[in-house]
């Protein structure tokens, strides 16, 4: 709570300095929030060459809109929201589709159900999980699994587990209701778990 209040005070101080013409203060805001922005941009924008332009565009938009920031959320969350929307606008302009955003529900539910049935038939036991811990490079398997996830799931996983944002904060950034964020996160993790178990079982046969 105190940490949050301290953050708000810092945000307010920085915003006031920027609005009074101090561009260095905006540089500080960029430095404070670029990790979050990088995570969003990297998960949504596939082309490395586009990321540089988009990152700059995000902050120039934030600078222009800063007088309208009313401190209803953390400054980082507000900038995260601009980042997310800028990335989506970019995809729309390029006529690209953010996988999972348009056809998530049915297709991924079906895929998950298929995986669940397969796993159920194999009856993963306590012992196999233990062997798995010892023998497999979990990080690499999880990375492969994350790469296969729809961009929206990857973004949510990153914001929740790496940035440690709350469901509400992620909801503010993505424009999704907190309940939907929670539900998507559950599905994403289930998909990753299924992928992890399948991977293990497949390799175990060799």
């Amino acid at each position, binding site marked *: 709570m105190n940490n949050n209040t301290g953050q708000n005070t810092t945000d307010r101080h920085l915003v006031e300095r920027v609005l009074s013409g101090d*561009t260095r203060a905006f540089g500080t805001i960029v430095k404070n929030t670029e990790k979050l922005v990088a995570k969003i941009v990297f998960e949504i924008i596939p082309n490395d060459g586009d990321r540089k332009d988009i990152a700059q565009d995000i902050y120039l938009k934030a600078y222009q809109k800063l007088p309208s920031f009313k401190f209803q959320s953390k400054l980082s969350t507000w900038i995260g929201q601009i980042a997310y929307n800028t990335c989506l606008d970019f995809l729309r302009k390029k006529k690209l589709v953010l996988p999972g955003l348009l056809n998530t529900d049915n297709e991924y539910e079906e895929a998950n159900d298929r995986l669940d049935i397969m796993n159920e038939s194999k009856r993963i036991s306590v012992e196999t999980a233990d062997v798995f811990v010892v023998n497999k490079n979990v990080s690499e398997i999880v990375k492969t699994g994350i790469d296969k996830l729809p961009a929206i799931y990857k973004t949510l996983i990153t914001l929740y587990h790496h940035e440690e944002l709350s469901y509400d904060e992620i909801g503010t950034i993505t424009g999704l209701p907190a309940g939907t964020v929670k539900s998507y996160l559950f599905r994403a993790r289930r998909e990753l778990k299924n992928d992890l178990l399948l991977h293990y079982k497949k390799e175990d046969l060799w």
Partner: protein
Amino acid sequence: MVIKHLTDDEVQRYTVDKPTCENRIAEHIHLCGECRSKVEVYQLLITGINQQAQPAFNFNLSELVVQQLPSPKEKASDRWLLWVLLFIGIGFIGTIFYYFEGSFVYLFSGIAAIFIYLIIITALTVITGLFIAMYKKYDSEMKLLDSY
């Protein structure tokens, strides 16, 4: 005896948000080996997620953005400084004229009026030019300092 296993959502909830989980879930996991193993798999997954490399921009974003920002508005303190300098200048010239008025008349009495005007206009032009150049230099240096 455990009759019904936990759902996947309950297992996840226990793994990622243990403090807010209902007691029955914690109790079930304590008693049920199969559900406990599912929790372990999720714990492993979370560890794997946390081990993933964090993406970062490979350029100085802050510098790139600040360079593109419109130049800051003239600060109020700068305007005050200008006015103070102007008043000091006027006061200084006024004082000289006040004390040496007689001498000035005597000094310029032998010169044609046209030359006097020419000298005054030239002097004012040079002083104004110097003042503008000095202020521009000061302003550009302040901007340079601001960008660091």
